[in-house]
């Protein structure tokens, strides 16, 4: 009954638990009681370097746009496209974000359930984890075109690809978190004869939360990438920023391409912001939640 692919030797099972993101317990430089003062942003020393850098980059861009008009559109034309067709971008951003979020949600549920199984049942762990570790470093976006052939131009290939991309980081990190409860904590609750379910609910799952959020930080940008790549691979999709980009580039409409990319970047920032807020709420007890990650 060996259904494990042969390239995964059982010996590989042992070192198969590297956290995707290092243990999330990195000590924070800013303690909970002294949040960095927001007043700091008024001081030029704080904001001036960034503004100066943006000005330089903007100037370089404009210079490049003048020299290479077929590569870079002038900044004002991007801005005009954004403001003229605001509703259009908003609608397509909504489609892409919806695909990314739905794929991520499916993946989250599936990976979480499997992580619980993997952490509770050694046989499942030995069968699954080596494969997960290999697939985690495989660029699964590469199968996007094949998925489009299989599932057509609808939402299915987009959901499948985003779910696939998000699956393994969540699985590996959550498994690590469920299994990294200190030995002596386990001993205390074992002497009370806590059931597996009680151990999971009161000890293992809360212990895995910081790892889970670390995974979400990794996969949320990946989920957007997955959705866009799937849209790009399915020329003729009904919508989404990837479709907008592929249509616009085929018509050499560079302003629209870059405007879409700008919207995608904004979307990424927004998603990160939501996750950071959720993390602060859920992990108020954890030192990572007090560190300033947005600096």
């Amino acid at each position: 009954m060996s259904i494990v692919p042969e390239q995964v030797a059982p010996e590989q099972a042992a070192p198969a638990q590297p956290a995707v993101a290092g243990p999330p317990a990195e000590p924070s430089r800013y303690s909970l009681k002294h949040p960095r003062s927001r007043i700091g942003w008024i001081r030029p020393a704080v904001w001036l370097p960034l503004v100066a850098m943006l000005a330089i980059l903007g100037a370089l861009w404009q210079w490049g746009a003048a020299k290479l008009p077929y590569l870079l559109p002038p900044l004002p034309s991007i801005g005009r496209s954004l403001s003229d067709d605001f509703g259009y971008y908003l609608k397509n951003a909504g489609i892409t974000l919806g695909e990314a979020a739905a794929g991520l949600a499916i993946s989250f549920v599936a990976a979480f359930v499997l992580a619980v199984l993997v952490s509770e049942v050694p046989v499942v762990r030995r069968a699954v984890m080596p494969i997960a570790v290999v697939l985690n470093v495989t660029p699964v976006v590469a199968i996007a075109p094949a998925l489009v052939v299989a599932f057509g131009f609808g939402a299915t290939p987009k959901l499948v690809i985003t779910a696939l991309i998000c699956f393994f980081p969540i699985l590996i990190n959550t498994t690590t978190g469920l299994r990294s409860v200190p030995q002596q904590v386990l001993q205390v609750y074992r002497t009370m004869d806590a059931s597996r379910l009680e151990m999971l609910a009161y000890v293992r799952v809360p212990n895995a939360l910081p790892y889970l959020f670390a995974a979400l930080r990794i996969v949320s940008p990946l989920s957007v990438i997955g959705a866009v790549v799937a849209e790009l691979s399915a020329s003729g999709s009904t919508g989404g920023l990837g479709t907008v980009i592929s249509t616009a580039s085929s018509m050499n409409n560079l302003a629209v391409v870059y405007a879409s990319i700008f919207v995608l970047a904004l979307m990424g920032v927004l998603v990160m912001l939501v996750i950071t807020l959720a993390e602060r709420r859920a992990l108020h007890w954890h030192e990572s939640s007090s560190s300033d990650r947005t600096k």
Partner: protein
Amino acid sequence: MKVSAIELDSARKVYGHGASAMVALSDVDLSIGPGRFVSLIGPSGCGKSTLLRLVAGLETADGGSVRVHGVTPDQACAAKLIGFVPQTPALLPWRSVLGNVTLPQRINTAAARRRERIGDLGERGAGKAPPDMLELLRRAGLGEVVHRLPAQLSGGMQQRTAIVRAFGLQPDVMLMDEPFSALDEFTRETLQDQLLDLWDELKTTVLFITHSVQEAVRLSDTVVVMAPRPGRIVDVIDIDLPRPRNQRLFEQSSFHEYEDLIRDRLHRAWRSADAA
């Protein structure tokens, strides 16, 4: 017939196999009556923690038998007879002090029924009401910090929380593995006082590991001296000092005589180990 709270009969534990096998405990006999405070002392590596883990049901003996109130350690855990205090506080960092000490009441709620069916424990704890955890925390000097998270407490406060968590189970047997070894001397003495106070009220049997001779004499009714390679019991010394044992005890010559006696036995245990 009176059943021992803890009974080891030729208990044996071996780690590893074949040539690398290590006898951690060799034919250990020990019988502890209900309500006694017993300390285990001995050089590190002599199997103290192993013995405690056997009683706690965290490991199984390779020979002989281990009984807690006449039942196996696993049955004792299932009936929540055991309170375990490990060397580190082992608190859940996401729960407040109060949350940590009240969690055991929500775990394994079928234990009370199982406990009633165990020998003479049924009548002893019949209709035992769950303890007022806030009151216990206050008695342990944690009244001000009940809503704090463990990370916001000092090491001594964390260890006190762990002890209150164990006493909150109203265990029949309390197992403590060097609970004070990481604390400074002043904190340690305060915690000893509080431990004796709680023990006196709750009448729990205590098996307490320590590497401090003074701590062993101060706390115990009986001190068990162990020796390594193979791990075994070499001496059982009853401490016949009056209670309550407060700071004045340190001035008494009989206290120091016990200390000297145990130091002497420990040195002998060392020498016999080196000779082996």
